[in-house]
């Protein structure tokens, strides 16, 4: 599947809405995640306190980011880790590939990391002489399918069991002929086992970077991170600079929030802190450890007053609860990060000019903010991006004309009321059984959904009538 581009958002959306089963497939996973999260929060009465504490941990670290970055660097170097810095995604991907080439790597295993996708690592390897092996089951599925991820926690949620059966039969050396999900997972286990053990380089992301020890922390349910990192001779970590926390004790509240918000589980099965290369007598482990600290737009977010977005711990709760995401899925956003968090991040990682339409694909119902484990005010940030987009004149001329016309009318109450009354009559002409399926100038809306029939009179008319009735009654 060819990756969509963010600037083609409207086309991507039309394409997604035309797929009859997509909504059903997405909702199967997101609805379950929504229910399980609600149960996890109900079983954790201290959740609001944890949320407040988690927010404070992130805000504190962001406030003193240069202090903690310097501390992390010092302690990581002391552990024997080689620290690299990358201002951009391209720089980061080049650093990783250079390390692999220095070691004459042929096979590279990688555990799931959205930052790896963000910096274009998957494409960089695919255009190289090296074999990239994704070890997270979902990433393994989308690698075989040639798809981009469609969700940050379940990147293959757009693929059905039938798709997986076909892919595994085509690509696995010892495939299963069963269609049972357990057997499919066993097939992947068999296929990946030797690849884990014969890899030259293991690449991981990091959920948290601990400043006081120079450690990186991986969080998985499959245990694929440890299997990716331990057998090869070199471990490379790629991490955004916002992953910093002061210490392990500060990572703990965020760990409590992360899985509950992501999957509804109280904790993931595997939390591992990685502290540099193997010690001289260690039974196993990589002989070299590198960490690539990536900016790629994060300091720009700090400078532009979007630092609240740097709190994000990538749980995916905002997209699981987003009415827009549930309709169009992740690919329509044309970015590594879909949903509400993606609509704020993409304009900074790419550009607002390219990704301004995503900021409008939001009803501002506030559900994303309600469920965010670190209280990111996503609707506020989206509104701010909309304002910037307007000021920079990124909106299409037709949109600007409509909004400016509305502004002109809204400043003239009599004209506004007259036109509103005419509008109600006009809409009534096209309504059938309470719904409008077609009406001139509204095809953008009615192409994929019906408009509700308006009340018989305008709001102002009803308001005045009600006020009159009240004063008459008194």
């Amino acid at each position: 599947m060819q990756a969509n581009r963010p600037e083609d958002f409207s086309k991507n959306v039309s394409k997604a809405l035309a797929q009859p089963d997509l909504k059903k497939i997405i909702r199967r996973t997101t609805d379950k995640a929504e229910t399980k999260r609600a149960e996890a929060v109900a079983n954790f009465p201290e959740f609001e306190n944890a949320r407040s504490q988690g927010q404070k941990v992130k805000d504190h670290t962001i406030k003193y980011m240069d202090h903690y970055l310097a501390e992390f660097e010092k302690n990581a170097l002391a552990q024997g880790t080689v620290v690299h810095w990358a201002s951009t995604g391209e720089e980061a991907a080049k650093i990783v590939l250079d390390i692999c080439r220095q070691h004459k790597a042929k096979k590279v295993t990688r555990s799931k990391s959205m930052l790896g996708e963000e910096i274009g690592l998957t494409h960089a390897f695919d255009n190289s002489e090296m074999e990239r092996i994704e070890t997270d089951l979902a990433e393994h599925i989308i690698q075989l399918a040639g798809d981009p991820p469609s969700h940050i926690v379940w990147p293959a949620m757009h693929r059905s069991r039938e798709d997986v059966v076909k892919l595994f039969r085509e690509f696995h050396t010892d495939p299963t002929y069963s269609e049972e999900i357990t057997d499919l997972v066993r097939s992947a286990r068999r296929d990946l086992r030797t690849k884990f053990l014969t890899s030259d380089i293991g690449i991981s992301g990091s959920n948290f970077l601990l400043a006081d020890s120079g450690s990186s922390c991986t969080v998985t349910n499959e245990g694929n991170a440890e299997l990716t990192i331990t057998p090869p001779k070199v471990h490379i970590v790629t991490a955004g600079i916002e992953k910093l926390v002061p210490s392990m004790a500060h990572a703990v509240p965020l760990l409590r929030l992360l899985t509950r918000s992501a999957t509804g589980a109280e904790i993931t099965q595997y939390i591992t802190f990685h502290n540099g290369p193997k010690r001289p007598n260690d039974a196993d482990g990589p002989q070299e450890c590198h960490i690539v600290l990536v900016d790629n737009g994060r300091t720009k977010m700090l400078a532009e007053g979007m630092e609240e977005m740097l709190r994000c711990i990538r749980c995916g709760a905002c997209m699981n609860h987003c009415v827009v995401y549930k309709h169009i899925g992740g690919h329509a956003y044309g970015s590594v990060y879909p949903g509400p968090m993606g609509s704020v991040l993409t304009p900074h990682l790419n550009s607002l000019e390219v990704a301004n339409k995503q900021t409008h694909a939001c009803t501002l119902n506030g559900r994303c903010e309600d469920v965010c484990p670190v209280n990111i005010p996503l609707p506020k940030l989206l509104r701010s991006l909309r304002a910037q987009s307007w000021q920079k004149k990124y909106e299409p001329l037709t949109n600007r004309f409509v909004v400016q016309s509305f502004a002109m009318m809204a400043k003239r109450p009599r004209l506004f009321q007259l036109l509103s009354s005419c509008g109600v009559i006009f809409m009534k002409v096209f309504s059938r059984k309470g719904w409008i399926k077609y009406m001139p100038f509204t095809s953008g809306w009615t192409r994929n959904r019906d408009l509700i029939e308006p009340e018989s009179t305008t709001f102002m008319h009803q308001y005045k009538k009600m006020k009159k009735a009240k004063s008459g009654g008194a």
Partner: protein
Amino acid sequence: MNSQQNEQSRAKIFSAIKAAAPTVTMDVKTIQEEALEILKESEFARPKLLSEDATQALVLRIEAGLVIGTSCEKLSTLADLPHSVKQFFGKHSLPHSLKVQGVEQLEKLNWQGISTDSDIQQDNTVGLCWAEYGVAETGSFVVHSSADMPILLNFLPLYLIAVIPKSKILHYMDDYALIANEIAKKAETPRNMCLISGVSGTTDIEGVLVQGAHGPEILHLIIVEDQ
């Protein structure tokens, strides 16, 4: 990327942060005090345990099915461990073969009738390891990499048995973080510190949970009274 480019990128990132927040203090003591202040909230921001006793809380959590693919039992003496392992083999219809971690506590036991050095790179094997700690809050056991502890022992076998000394069971993850901090102060931090809370699982195909994705499918925790 050469070191000069690396230095340039580093300088660029630091100057961008400084430019974004030019008035922020860099007094280390103030920063540390603020960081510690946040941790004072932990007491009110963590879940209640199922029992005040850490061991009991961990056992209740596992018995309630809250730790995926995990069972547990208590032993009053470590000498009974080989017998428990044989029962585990019987329950899962396994041959009497496993890989015992090379620590004195386990190696000195009477393993008669059990092969103790199976190749964990093969699938369908059983691993036996000695945990450094247990954590009641999450139903976890903790292992540290070392000369005696190959990390892969916890990730390759399809069946895993972990022995936790009762005195090493902690109430909360915060308690383990304090211990990790003490280890760091002595410059003895191991390469890997793994908190393992259940078995290798995935919900990546249609949201259905399958155990044994890459690593263990079955985990058995044995809590042993200290000798």
